[in-house]
């Protein structure tokens, strides 16, 4: 059964179940299909809720008054099948009970023996583990409010801009497969990516980008065009609050104490204006290069000249910049 348009073997485009219209309209249709495909199915969501419940039981048995909150992509709904679950535990401790919880999770066999790690030297100390039943990865932090607040902000912007989920999931997959989706592998974090998408919509010259049914292909290419080509990372920073604006980086620097320089990708945190979300995104220029590449590929693929490529009916335009691995397809099939 070749549902992904492959003549033989695996094409990497499992979302493609039909032939699309020509050009940019076809790209719009394909983004919708990708979104439907990659979005969590009810069973997957259920499975993740069960992971949370297992961990919550261990925590409640240790500290009955502790509160466990889900934040990050699992709470906003903007997650890929392989995304982590982010949990935060609120309670009263003299020192963070990282090792106590680690031991309990190990004893109760919630976590895979070799998968559990305590990162106690990190800026935000966390426990990392893989759930032994589902192989879903989980990060647990303690008494940190910011993630929960950010998740609420993301949910608000999702309401305001209906196109955001479509753009963000394509962009997340795009960065994930290039290993540009984490700050420590030379990429950008998902909060930065999300705020970039919000700013793109807030400051878009055409007001109809927030209309109910704009062409998603046009918006995706325009996102890549802005951040891959036009955005001047040297001079310009992003501000989200009060409806959005750009800020001059040299002025940001003047306002900063002790000579701190704004990072290459400067994004003012709408929840905490003194905080630069893009700081430590040393890989911002690599991300910019990847966006520029995507701009070139997609704008060519939707141009009228591309019509004369052989087999364009069976080919995927979106598949030129993103692929879903066979492991993910199999993981989701069981």
């Amino acid at each position: 059964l070749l549902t992904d348009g492959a003549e033989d073997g695996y094409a990497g485009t499992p979302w493609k179940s039909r032939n699309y219209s020509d050009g940019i309209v076809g790209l719009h249709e394909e983004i919708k299909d990708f979104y439907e495909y990659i979005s969590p199915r009810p069973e997957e969501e259920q499975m993740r809720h069960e992971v949370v419940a297992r961990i919550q039981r261990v925590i409640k048995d240790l500290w009955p008054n502790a509160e466990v909150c889900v934040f990050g992509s699992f709470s906003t709904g903007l997650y890929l099948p392989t995304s982590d679950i982010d949990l935060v535990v609120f309670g009263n401790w003299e020192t963070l009970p990282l090792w106590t919880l680690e031991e309990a999770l190990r004893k109760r066999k919630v976590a895979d023996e070799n998968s559990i790690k305590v990162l106690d030297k990190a800026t935000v100390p966390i426990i990392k583990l893989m759930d032994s039943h589902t192989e879903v990865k989980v990060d647990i932090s303690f008494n940190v409010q910011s993630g929960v607040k950010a998740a609420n902000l993301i949910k608000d912007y999702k309401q305001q801009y209906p196109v955001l989920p479509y753009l963000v999931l394509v962009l997340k997959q795009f960065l994930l497969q290039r290993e540009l989706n984490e700050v420590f592998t030379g990429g950008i974090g998902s909060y930065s990516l999300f705020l970039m998408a919000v700013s793109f919509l807030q400051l878009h010259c055409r007001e109809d980008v927030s209309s109910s049914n704009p062409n998603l292909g046009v918006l995706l290419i325009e996102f890549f065009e802005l951040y891959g080509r036009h955005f001047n990372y040297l001079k310009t920073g992003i501000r989200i609050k009060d409806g959005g604006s750009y800020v001059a980086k040299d002025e940001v620097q003047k306002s900063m104490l002790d000579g701190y320089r704004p990072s290459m990708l400067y994004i003012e945190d709408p929840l905490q204006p003194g905080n630069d979300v893009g700081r430590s995104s040393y890989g911002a220029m690599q991300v910019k290069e990847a966006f520029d590449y995507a701009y070139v590929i997609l704008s060519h693929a939707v141009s009228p000249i591309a019509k004369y490529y052989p087999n364009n009916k069976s080919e995927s335009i979106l598949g030129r910049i993103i692929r879903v691995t066979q492991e993910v397809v199999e993981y989701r099939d069981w």
Partner: protein
Amino acid sequence: DDCLERAFWYKRCHRCGMTGHFIDACPQIWRQYHLTTTAGPIRKSADPKACQKRAYCYNCSRKGHFGHQCSQRRMYNWSYPSLPVITYYDTVNDIKCRDFR
């Protein structure tokens, strides 16, 4: 013959008037579909040149103009701005014309 692009001494698009590309590679060709999501005629905006009132420049970061209108130096010399608003929507004939070029 109207379909043929005349040779120009420098790369300027006579569809959108911007420098840096010829008419066949004009981003307006795909951008004009910004409201069209199904095959068939192009859905036009009621006021295609309407821009947001609050303009901010992605190039120099200042308020009052958009990035494509900026006269300041770009981050890269090779990059040319493009027009985010639609100057012209193709008719069915225009599209046919381009297909047979």
